[in-house]
């Protein structure tokens, strides 16, 4: 399943360089992928509780001759659109819309494709009041047991819990210059050293690149980008993502649901690095 081509971009890209590429304003965003690889996209709106969050888009589309539910963080391509889409930082209602669409997909037997591209979940006062923590937690819970295949592709920034809330998938793919991090490097630098300017150090230490995360067994595949980054040849970037999605979706739809869910359980249950000393003989192995 791995078509690991040798990295085509100059080999000496630092993690911080990749952070810049992942955030490049010209990088294709979610809707370009949806329109590039799917047909008949019908966008669905609203969480039925509070509002419609433009930082997450979702709806049904035809992909590879079947109907899928596509859900993704949506950044803007200019300042105005970025303001409207809150720079791709979802509010609680965005995650609740995503959950609604996932349950919809489950009900009608549609696979779910999530496109990940967010700096983080929105951290403002109103989001706290409306339960940002709860919204993310509910998204994670929804995905753990969703009775349909889920594939997540990180197409830009995978920022913290805001990204994880759409990433609890059977397969996680990342583009070559995408990043996935426990927190934005600026935040990590601020948390650890009270100095956001040291983000490049944090980016190196965090192992947030696709290559690092593949080596750590967190993601399933790295999707190559054109030399210079996804924005330098948008059609070929989009086509490459479509091709890999098609292959993984075929793998997953071939599985029966019980196997799919058992594999999903095992995949996440196994994540963690610790030492287990021999002494607790009756402890679970």
């Amino acid at each position, binding site marked *: 399943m791995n078509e690991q081509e040798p990295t085509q971009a100059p080999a000496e890209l630092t993690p911080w360089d990749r952070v810049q590429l992942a955030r490049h304003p010209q990088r294709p965003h979610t809707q370009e992928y949806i329109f590039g690889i799917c047909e008949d996209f019908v966008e669905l709106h609203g969480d039925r509780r509070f509002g419609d969050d433009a930082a997450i888009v979702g709806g049904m589309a035809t992909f590879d001759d079947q109907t899928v539910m596509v859900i993704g963080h949506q950044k803007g391509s200019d300042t105005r659109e970025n303001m409207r889409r809150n720079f791709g930082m979802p509010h609680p209602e965005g995650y609740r819309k995503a959950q609604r669409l996932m349950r919809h997909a489950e009900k009608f037997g549609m696979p779910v494709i999530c496109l990940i591209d967010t700096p983080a979940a929105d951290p403002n006062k109103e989001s706290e009041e409306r339960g940002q923590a709860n919204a993310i*937690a509910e998204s994670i819970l929804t995905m753990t047991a969703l009775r349909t295949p889920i594939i997540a592709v990180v197409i830009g920034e995978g920022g913290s819990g805001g990204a994880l809330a759409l990433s609890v998938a059977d397969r996680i793919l990342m583009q070559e210059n995408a990043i996935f991090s426990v927190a934005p490097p600026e935040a990590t630098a601020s948390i650890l050293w009270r100095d956001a300017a040291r983000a490049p150090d944090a980016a190196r230490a965090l192992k947030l690149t696709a290559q690092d995360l593949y080596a750590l067994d967190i993601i399933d595949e790295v999707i190559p980008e054109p030399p210079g980054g996804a924005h330098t040849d948008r059609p070929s970037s989009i086509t490459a993502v479509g091709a890999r999605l098609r292959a993984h979706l075929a793998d997953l739809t071939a599985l029966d649901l019980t196997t799919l869910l058992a594999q999903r359980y095992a995949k996440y249950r196994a*994540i*963690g*690095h610790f030492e287990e000393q021999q002494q607790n003989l009756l402890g679970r192995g």
Partner: protein
Amino acid sequence: MKEFFRRTRKSFNSTESPEVPQIPDDLWIKCSACRELIYKKQLNDNLKVCPKCGHHMRLGAREWLGLLDVGSFSETDANLLPLDPLGFTTPEESYADKLKQSQQRTGMTDAVIAGVGSINGTWLAVATGDFSFMGSSMGSVYGEKMARSAERAADLGVPLLTINTSGGARQQEGVIALMQMAKVTMALTRLAEAAQPHIALLVDPCYGGVTASYPSVADVIIAEPGANIGFAGKRLIEQIMRQKLPAGFQTSEFMLEHGMIDMVVSRSDLRDVLDRLLRHYTRRTGVAEQTNHRVAAYTNGKI
């Protein structure tokens, strides 16, 4: 006998309360909220709740175990030790060193203590964080102990109580730490299949990836009065989002008002409330005695 377990029992049965800094000598402690000097014995008798202003001071994980029936707790997974999966080093510090220092300072291996114990005779799996160990940040060991606790509760057919305090995901374990949010939530699906409840207690402070995962989807969520609970830290909201925050923002009472938790319960009432809650679930699953035998067999086997 019954009286002993009622709320008149003012003390959890904690063995030794660790030293709190900023004490003039070991007899008096200054309340961090009202600045009054409190006689230490009086404070401990009052479960570390300030008798003057009601401020709930933080408890360590070992102290929290005093919530359980005397002698009922048996620890599990004490043999899990943290590693440094990313080789996280920066000019000033390495994660490996930081772990060593925290272990020496606290006498703990990592931030969570897990096990099985009872509250007023009802058995349950318990896992509790300790803020003094790297801010009770969630890394692999934290996640593994929580996940195993959920699975153990499912296997034994008993409820799960998690006591949660955390600064969030442990930065030094990167995405592996982030993924613990999914891992613990995944394990909780087993508990749900076993039709056993997860009761989450949120204590001061609880933030980030911990608040944004398993405790927020618990069946019952309880918080201590005045605890700071939220997703994004206040400093971030004020400095980066440049928003003014009202008094009482991100407190337990704020969470209750916004519908995010079930109740705010003061420490002296906790055992009583948990006891009443637990009885509703054990009544439903029937024969509590069978459960007790199962747990007794399990804990005896371990020792």
